[in-house]
């Protein structure tokens, strides 16, 4: 009998080469996906036509194989456990793929940041970010949701210990709202939508910025966890000014009552100080800042996945299948124990390019485990250090440098930035060029030698007025990085060769009158002497 096109297709889909090829392509896609950034991997690999096509082909192959296995198993008496295990695995995988497809078509997800006391109306626009299936409208919760409270506790070192969120869900028929508690790993259901909290939370500074011209701008600045008990955020005002905010949260979860504020226009520091809830501060530009309150905010996620039960059923079948396939001994007429392994008995030999597969895996493993320090990587480290430290000098904010320096360099910078603040000055610097001359790494130390060209000027806090002349200098620097908790941080910096200053030495003129200083000839460090 001549095989029909349908039979030929079936034979093709269950042929060993196609099945192994499908698994191999999905495997390689996984490998490639992890070598790219997650966004790029999602776009170029896991949502690409070729990947989805391969998964679709694998689904059809699994279907054909499962039907075939089921038919053969139905004819086998007594029932054999090993083939049953294989069938269960394949059926489970079918369900997993089907559930993922249903989620992609009918699933909805949304995210929103909510402050204590804020109510989310029952509209889709209440949620900030939506991820919607192809055949479904954006997520909308049936009832208004009010965030009543956020109770967060942190360990003494600053890591989050617990987060509990109190919500109030209004009834559909205007019945009294019901209070529900929620925590990490503990969601609530509202009309078939699952709502849960992530560990993103922090204080929200409710700020009002009144310009001298009368323009008023109000916003809630959400401060995000930076390190330790510190939360930070920034806000661009109507006039182009930028406010940098910082608050310390008590480990026991007590809400902060004050926020550290720095206001900058371009590279000039206009204001630095602490603002309490209810306080108003006047800026040198004539505008005012009002802090209306500092409640907590939390990020809420909501989703509806119509195929969640199917994925769990799929998982259960796969688990049951592998257990039956690989662990249970089959019934044996003689009563002897038989080891179950998939014996190569079904097909005649077909050569698989196994060495090629191994070679690819070894190459990928080699590529990804390489951790040497190349010059571009060293350059990134130095650039990051210089960017952060320049900003710290510009804002007069020494806490910024914590992420790039170790204790030694941190102490030095605290002194240098603090002294400028006492003098009412900030340093506005710009790295014009950077060349990495050498980068060497040992077990715990990385040394990077650079040639840097900088432009500097001092500015007065409040007005941003330039103090003294602008200077452009070239240095050869030696950076000593040390590993602190898996990160390379600057432990100390030295001049590799004597520096060349455009303006070798100049006396500072300081408005306060009680402090004077000079730029040292042989050092980047500016020494200050107070009488």
């Amino acid at each position, binding site marked *: 009998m001549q095989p029909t096109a349908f039979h030929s297709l079936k034979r093709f889909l269950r042929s060993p080469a196609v099945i192994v090829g499908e698994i191999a392509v999905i495997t390689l896609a*996984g490998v490639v996906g992890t070598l790219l950034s997650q966004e790029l991997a999602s776009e170029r690999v896991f949502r690409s036509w070729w990947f989805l096509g391969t998964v679709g082909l694998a689904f059809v192959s699994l279907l054909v194989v499962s039907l075939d296995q089921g038919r053969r198993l139905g004819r086998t008496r007594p029932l054999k456990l090993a083939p049953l295990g294989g069938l269960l695995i394949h059926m489970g995988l079918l369900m997993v793929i089907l559930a993922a497809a249903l989620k992609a078509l009918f699933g909805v997800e949304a995210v929103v940041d909510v402050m204590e006391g804020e109510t989310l109306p029952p509209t889709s626009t209440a949620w900030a970010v939506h991820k919607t299936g192809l055949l479904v409208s954006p997520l909308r919760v049936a009832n208004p949701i009010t965030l009543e409270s956020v109770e967060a506790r942190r360990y003494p070192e600053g890591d989050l210990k617990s987060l509990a969120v109190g919500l109030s869900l209004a009834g559909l028929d205007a019945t009294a709202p019901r209070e529900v508690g929620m925590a990490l790993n503990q969601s609530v259901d509202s009309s078939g939508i699952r709502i849960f909290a*992530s560990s993103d939370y922090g204080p929200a500074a409710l700020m009002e910025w009144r310009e001298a011209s009368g323009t008023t701008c109000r916003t809630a600045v959400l401060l995000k966890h930076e390190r330790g008990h510190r939360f930070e955020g920034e806000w661009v005002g109507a006039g182009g000014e930028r406010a940098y905010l910082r608050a310390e949260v008590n480990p026991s979860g007590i809400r902060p009552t004050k926020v550290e504020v720095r206001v900058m226009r371009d590279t000039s520091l206009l204001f630095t100080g602490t603002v309490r809830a209810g306080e108003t501060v006047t800026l040198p530009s004539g505008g005012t800042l009002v802090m209306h309150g500092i409640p907590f905010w939390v990020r809420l996620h909501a*989703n509806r996945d119509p195929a969640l039960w199917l994925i769990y059923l799929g998982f259960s079948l796969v688990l049951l299948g592998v257990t039956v396939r690989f662990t249970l001994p089959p019934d044996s007429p003689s009563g002897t124990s038989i080891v179950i392994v998939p014996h*190569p008995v079904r097909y005649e030999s077909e050569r698989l390019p196994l060495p090629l597969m191994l070679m690819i895996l070894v190459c990928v493993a080699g590529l990804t485990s390489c951790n040497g320090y190349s010059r571009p990587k060293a350059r990134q480290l130095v650039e990051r250090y210089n960017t952060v430290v320049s900003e710290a000098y510009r804002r007069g904010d020494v806490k910024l440098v914590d992420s790039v320096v170790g204790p030694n360099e941190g102490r030095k910078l605290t002194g240098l930035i603090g002294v400028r603040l006492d003098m009412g000055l900030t340093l506005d610097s710009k790295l014009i060029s950077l060349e990495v001359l050498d980068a060497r790494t040992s077990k715990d130390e990385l040394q990077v030698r650079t040639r840097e060209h900088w432009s500097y000027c001092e500015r007065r806090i409040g007005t941003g007025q330039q103090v003294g002349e602008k200077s452009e200098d070239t240095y050869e620097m030696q950076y000593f990085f040390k590993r602190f908790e898996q990160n390379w941080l600057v432990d100390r910096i030295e001049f590799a060769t004597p520096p060349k200053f455009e303006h070798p030495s100049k006396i500072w003129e300081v408005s306060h009158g009680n402090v004077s200083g000079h730029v040292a000839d042989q050092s980047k460090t500016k020494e200050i002497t107070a009488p």
Partner: protein
Amino acid sequence: MSPFAWETTFHWSAVALYIAGIVGIAYALIFDRPTKRVVALWLAAAGLLPHTTALVLRYIHVGHGPYMMKYEVLSSNAWIAVVLLLLFLWRRPGWSPLALVVLPVSVLMLGFGLFTNPEARDLPPTLRSMWLVFHVLFNKLAVGAFLLSVAAAVILLRKLAGSSSRLLDRMPDVGTVETYMVRFIGFGMVFWTTTIVAGAIWANQSWGRYWGWDPIETWSLVTWLCYAILLHARLFFRLKARATAWATIACFVVSILTILVFPFVFPSMHSAYFQS
């Protein structure tokens, strides 16, 4: 002594006993002294006592299981591998040469872990889930089972290369070693599947999605698929014993990269918890 000093002392005592066990088994097998083999295995089993004590002390000290720091993870992985080995040898005493692969690898894991940062880290709230226990426990069992499969693969390759020694001659024939090698892979697949499923359920509970193509999630799937390719290729293409053994070793390398290397290489949700 501080709790950490006790931990270290117990850990090093375990290392010493495991090494004594390795030497004893090697001596017993090479010089054909069956009674010495039993003594050597008891020495290795005795190593479990200080090892278990060290892990219990660690649990009391940090307040959570061994799944945060490399120090804890490697030690507990080594513990599981030794336990699985001894359980298997208890039922199949003739397979003692497996110990000459599994015990040294366990000692290496333990020793390497002892030289990493032992500083305790606080448990993030998302890790407080019973699914974590299943996720981590079955992952360690999978590593133990895959390690046994690699040990069988090494012995199989030696036998196939025509090597002859009293040690190798005591082992079953090539066919039986290959069968057991694949059976260990089968057990590992059961445990690895449980790891992935428990992780997916837990991720859905914590993050609202059961799969997010996080690099470590993806590599756990890649590992599962690599073993699936091996099993399918063996079934379909009649892979010879030698090719199967080499593929087993390659798959084990992938699983170890997934568990112990990639969490430190790729920025991932897993690496946020599993550091230093």
